[in-house]
């Protein structure tokens, strides 16, 4: 049998289980070959429908290969490869298996042609990524990991409810543009589940809660896969949904606001994931060809530069053991290579000309412009300034420059630097040759990023953001605080409910369930026991006692006879003989 198409996601998910059996160099080769093979398969795939399985009378499509799923599959598998290079030195099989399963899940979501297949891979994403948080090691990581898992299980249930409802209403599981069902309960449930994974506020607090707690290498996978696979399904099903325009723009600004307040390096970057995904969600909402192309291109570029930024922050975390910006500073002296590579990622996310963000983000902003949405345009541009302010200025300033903390950490292991270099090369390559990316976008691209007006206004925006940064620098000093977010509701807001459970429900339990127990179990059991006891004392005991008593009486009687004196016995024998004689005489 010749396989017409091997599912790259299944390859990763199944292949991951081989790794624990391998050792040393062979294992490291395996870690790289798996995602590389997935990338090659994606690259060689031609559009079509593969892997159709009939299950319970429903057609499940594992391989919907078209231009949209292909471009996402390229970047997911490319990122998996970079992530594995970065994790090559880690001696923890569970992390590698989880990371590859996670990447496989994202590819599964990307190629899923129906909602049920989508749902299965969706849950796989949640479970495998939760493991990467739980393996973070610290106590806080375990707590955050369970919160993360619970939130995603909740999201998964919403999705499942939506799918079942959709199925019962339409009789079809096919996943395509959902616009025809807009406003219905199934449509709403599915949309909310997607928005939860895309970390759209107020459903997005799980992201900055969990990502900074994940392992240094696991976090790289997390930044890329969950939110961007959600962006993919939003493009697929919900392009042109008006509310997404506003949610996206709010997201872009929201992430920036929280980044000002943040002290934890990776949490600051996590808030900027929310901000960047805001551009994509907004692009999906605008829904024109330029906008969805922009959302796709931005997802592609974002995965690479965000991985690079998290790699840089992760390298510092690994080498110094510190996560707070307020405890870093002066690292440029001993980690200049990490700094340089981080800055390439920072320039890419800040949309500096010749870096990847410039050619992708501007597509979404221009789409807002073409639709004459002035407020959206201004919000997105403001968020651009904020992105450069935090990722390009605040974080590197306090991490690498600023007040010298006395830390003299060395550069990270070579494999980490290689992974960062590859990601940095991709960021520059896309920025310099945007056609490399544009030719793979779902719609033909007529957009030209390098116009005079665009370049000069972007440079102006960035340069004067830098001026503002240096003027207001003393107000930006990171403080040792945490910021309230919507995770407050399940971390503190539920405390009264816990009290309610502990007090009221406990009283109910004692009062009602306890009484019920008394009536249903305790009383009948005790009653039966009493009956048995009575029977025991009246019948059995009495029988035993009376047997004993009669034996005693008998022996008492016998005692008088059996005296032990020979003359008594002789006397009795004589009396007996006499009695016998008398009897014989009387009878004769």
């Amino acid at each position, binding site marked *: 049998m010749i396989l017409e198409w091997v599912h790259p996601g299944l390859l990763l998910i199944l292949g991951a289980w081989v790794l624990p059996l391998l050792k040393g160099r062979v294992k490291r080769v395996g870690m790289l070959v798996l995602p590389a093979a997935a990338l090659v398969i994606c690259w060689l795939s031609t559009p079509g429908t593969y892997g159709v399985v009939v299950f319970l009378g429903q057609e499940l499509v594992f391989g919907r290969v078209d231009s949209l799923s292909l471009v996402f599959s390229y970047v997911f598998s490319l990122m998996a490869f970079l992530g594995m290079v970065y994790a090559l030195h880690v001696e923890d099989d569970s992390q590698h298996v989880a990371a590859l399963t996670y990447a496989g899940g994202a590819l599964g979501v990307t190629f899923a042609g129906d909602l049920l297949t989508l749902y299965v891979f969706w849950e796989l994403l949640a479970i495998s990524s939760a493991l990467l948080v739980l393996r973070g090691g610290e106590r806080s990581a375990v707590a955050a990991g369970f919160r993360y898992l619970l939130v995603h299980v909740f999201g998964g249930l919403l999705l499942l409810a939506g799918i079942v409802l959709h199925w019962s209403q339409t009789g079809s599981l096919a996943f395509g543009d959902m616009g025809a069902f807009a406003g219905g309960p199934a449509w709403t449930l599915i949309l909310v589940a997607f928005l939860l994974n895309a970390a759209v506020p107020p459903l997005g607090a799980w992201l900055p809660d969990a990502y900074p707690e994940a392992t240094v290498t696991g976090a790289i996978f997390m930044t890329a896969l969950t939110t961007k696979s959600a962006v993919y399904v939003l493009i697929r099903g919900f392009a042109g949904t008006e509310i997404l325009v506003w949610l996206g723009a709010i997201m872009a600004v929201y992430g*920036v*606001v*929280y980044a*000002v*307040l943040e002290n934890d390096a990776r949490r600051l970057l996590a808030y900027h994931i929310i901000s960047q995904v805001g551009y994509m969600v907004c692009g999906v909402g605008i829904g024109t060809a330029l906008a969805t192309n922009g959302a796709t291109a931005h997802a592609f570029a974002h995965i690479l530069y965000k991985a690079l930024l998290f790699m840089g922050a992760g390298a510092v975390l690994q080498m110094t053991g510190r996560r707070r910006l307020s405890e870093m500073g002066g690292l*440029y*002296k001993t980690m*200049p290579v990490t*700094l340089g590579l981080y800055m390439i990622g920072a320039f890419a996310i800040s949309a500096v000309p010749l870096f990847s963000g410039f050619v992708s983000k501007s597509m979404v902003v*221009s789409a807002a*412009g*073409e639709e*004459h949405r*002035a407020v959206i*345009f*201004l919000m997105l*541009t*403001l968020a*651009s*300034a*904020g992105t450069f*302010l935090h990722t390009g200025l605040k974080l590197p300033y306090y991490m690498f*420059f600023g007040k010298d903390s006395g830390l003299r950490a060395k550069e990270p292991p070579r494999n980490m630097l290689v992974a960062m270099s590859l990601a940095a090369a991709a960021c520059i390559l896309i920025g310099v040759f945007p056609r490399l990316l544009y030719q793979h976008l779902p719609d033909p691209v007529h957009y030209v990023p390098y*116009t*005079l*007006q*665009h370049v*000069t*206004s*972007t*440079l*102006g*925006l*960035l*340069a*004067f*953001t*830098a*001026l*503002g*940064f240096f*003027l*207001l620098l003393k*107000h*930006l000093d990171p*403080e*040792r*605080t*945490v*910021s*309230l*977010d919507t995770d407050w509701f399940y*971390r*503190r807001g539920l405390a009264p409910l816990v009290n309610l459970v502990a007090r009221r429900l406990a009283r109910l339990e004692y009062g009602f369930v306890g009484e019920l127990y008394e009536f249903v179990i305790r009383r009948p059991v005790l009653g039966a026991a009493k009956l048995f006891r009575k029977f025991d004392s009246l019948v059995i005991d009495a029988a035993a006692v009376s047997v004993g008593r009669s034996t005693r009486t008998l022996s008492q009687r016998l005692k008088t006879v059996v005296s032990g004196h020979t003359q008594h016995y002789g006397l009795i024998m004589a009396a007996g003989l006499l009695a016998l004689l008398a009897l014989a005489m009387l009878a004769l």
Partner: protein
Amino acid sequence: MNFLQRQLEDPVRLGRLRRWFYVGLAVVALAEIVLPFIFHGGHPHFSFESLPAWGSLYGLISCAAIIVVSKLIGKVWLMRREDYYDS
């Protein structure tokens, strides 16, 4: 001692670096004002984009607004002690 250390730890060179930064700002702002009159590439979507040095202006305003407003919201409402969730 690497390249960055040589640049940043010598006050003379740091001062020079700062001056170059200001020159860069001026060049960028001027380019934004002047170049559209010489070349007519790219068309703005909104009237406010035609303001002189729009990008520079909006960048400065955005940066200041983000810092001030975020810190204000943070101080009044959002920022809590680090052990807030542990207690």
